[in-house]
């Protein structure tokens, strides 16, 4: 390897800043106020979900509304494997089970929806969430005489560190996929699927596998969150908001970079928090709706994209000025 070619400044920025952030996040439970640890858990949760969503949907343009299904499967994995089948299964094992269950579900969904394009795919995945919710409701009432299940709580710090772990893995995987040949394949599938296929890309494999891999993190996060919710029912587990939130957050932040969904998730969660508990709580959903439409109308590239555009315009203008 030719070391002289490495741009050290760039490398330092690329590796350094995430490292600083990571150290900060790792120390957070010891320095942050108690509730803010909880709030950061929610930041991490939504970052995991929106980044996972972006891995597949952001690149290919297939709008998946099945996030709630993967999340819900994780939650039910926790309810079943922590409480019913094997009461003392360690949390880490259940997290893996939840991730695996989501992987399998996503793999099946991916494999059977190959023919569906555009909005049909969105509708199928959304229908799936609602179907799972209805069927599990029915199943629990008819055959188990219960609606919801209790899940033993974990300490806030445990939940936080698990989410942090999943977050780190999600970011690394998202980064690697984006940087790899594989990510390029995803992107050009999004551009033109037919041409991609004739350029030697195994479109089916790339699509199904990425979709399934991206679902793992959502399912794993679901397992952890079940221990925070402590009481779960199909309505909580398969809440359609979990399908729409990642889409909104990713678009809000911008899908052009890996940081877009992260920023979108953090800001969205924070706005939600302020609105819900502030003096405007009676109008919270109303304001939420207005913000949503505002973002789509005025920030179509998301926050990151818009700031970059703005920057380009400013710097471009300056350059033009000096040249003139």
């Amino acid at each position, binding site marked *: 390897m030719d070391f002289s070619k490495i741009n050290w400044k760039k490398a330092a920025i690329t590796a350094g800043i995430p490292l600083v952030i990571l150290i900060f996040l790792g120390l957070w439970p010891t320095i942050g106020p108690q509730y803010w640890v909880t709030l950061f858990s929610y930041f991490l949760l939504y970052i995991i979900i929106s980044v996972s969503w972006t891995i597949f949907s952001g690149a290919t343009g297939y709008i998946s509304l099945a996030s709630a299904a993967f999340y819900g499967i994780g939650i039910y994995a926790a309810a079943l494997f922590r409480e019913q089948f094997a009461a003392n299964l360690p949390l880490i094992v259940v997290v893996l089970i939840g991730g695996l269950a989501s992987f399998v579900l996503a793999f099946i969904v991916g494999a059977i929806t190959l023919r569906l394009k555009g909005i049909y795919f969105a509708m199928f995945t959304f229908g799936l969430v609602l179907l799972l919710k209805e069927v599990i409701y029915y199943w629990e009432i008819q055959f188990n005489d219960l609606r*919801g299940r209790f899940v033993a709580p974990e300490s806030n710090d445990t939940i936080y560190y698990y989410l942090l772990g999943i977050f780190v893995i999600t970011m690394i995987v998202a980064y690697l996929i984006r940087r790899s040949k594989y990510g390029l394949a995803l992107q050009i599938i999004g551009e033109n699927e037919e041409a991609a296929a004739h350029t030697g890309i195994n479109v089916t494999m790339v699509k199904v596998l990425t979709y399934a891999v991206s679902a793992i993190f959502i399912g794993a996060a679901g397992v952890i969150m079940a221990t925070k919710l402590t009481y779960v029912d199909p309505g909580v587990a398969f809440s359609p908001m979990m399908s729409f939130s990642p889409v909104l957050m990713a678009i809000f932040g911008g899908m052009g970079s890996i940081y877009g969904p992260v920023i979108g998730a953090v800001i969205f969660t924070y706005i939600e928090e302020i609105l819900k508990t502030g003096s405007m709580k009676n109008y919270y959903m109303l304001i939420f709706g207005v913000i949503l439409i505002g973002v789509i109308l005025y920030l179509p590239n998301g926050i990151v994209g818009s700031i970059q555009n703005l920057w380009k315009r400013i710097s471009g203008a300056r350059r033009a000025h000096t040249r003139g």
Partner: protein
Amino acid sequence: MWNKILKYSIPLVICLVLVLTTVFASGCGGGGTEKNEILIGASRDITGPMAGFQDFGFAAVYNMWIDEVNAAGGIDVGGKKLPVRIIEYDDGSDPAVVTRNLEKLITEDKVDFLFGPTGTASLFAAAPIASKYNKIIICGEGGATTLIPKLPSMPYVFSVLNFSDHFQIPVFADICNEVGAKSAYIMYMSDLHGAEYNLTAQSEFTLKGITVLGTKSIPPTITDMDPIVKEAKASGADIFCSFSYPPQNILFMSTALALDYSPKMVLLGPGGNFQFFPLMFGDALQGVMAEGAWNAKSSPEAGAFAAKLEATVGLGNMDWWGAIVYYAALQHFAQAIEKAGTLENKAVRDVIATETFETVIGPMWWDCGPDHAGGGLLPQVCYAGQIGQWQNGIFEVIDPGDKRTAAPIYPKPPWPTP
């Protein structure tokens, strides 16, 4: 190069802003050690499908109670009168958000006590969180059999309301025996509430010689009840039970009126016991029964309370199921704090769990299991009534025994001609 730096600095700046806000927020939230008010937190459904309960459920009663307490200078805590303040957060009826709100109330706002959320599912979400942080929570709307085995491990949870086998259905079965109703058709909602009422009714009816001729579960989203009403009509059962929530009960009434299905006895779930029901259905409600009951005639105290509550919330928002027990539980709660002389949750909890205080429903105490070690439910004698029946615009208590304010009408008169 600039683009690269920018790309990384944006998230950094945002993180920085967040951290700074955090520091400020926590700096302001700290406060001194000297308490000058009693802070109560509640996650309530302010914008969601059950927002209506803000006007006539637990919230209506606790708001009135807080105003009264503060008008009198507050609650005496160790010789110092402290006013009560409530912080309410919206959860849109989503149990996941209830969890998050309660954590904020406990860890960020540092509230002293909690009041329960709206609805059974939310209550179930709230109870474990309150237990996790050892915070007293007094729960209003909601309650279910599934909670009972959990209560011994949740000593800080106090659930006020009566529900299925927590006395309602057994009393109803006794009334059926008394008037001679022999057979029943059960429609229940396919959720926790409906399922357990159905199970309780099945076993109670079998125990007391009432035949169940048919059962049907309905989803919460049902829009068309014709098939069920037609089937119930064809079954010829004396009793029709609707174990569901206000929207389904209203839909049942409308459908039954239109298809002229008027069984001898109709028992409705929540909704049937609220004043908006007679406002909606008028004379058609004559003889219709619902679960959980009290009225102005229950006792002189109840009469005074009814007048006071009506003056506060208006006649249309009267709740003839829980209002009086909510209020009694709050009176008990205030006296417990005064007796404990502290806001320390463990001490207050022990007083609540063991002591009997005089309230609007007479002497009231909590049933907290062996050694008063668990969470609490009210014993049967404390309730003003289990089953009510609309008679000439009044929701009469028809329980057998001394709680009764009027004898049951059986069979129910046919629907009035429109």
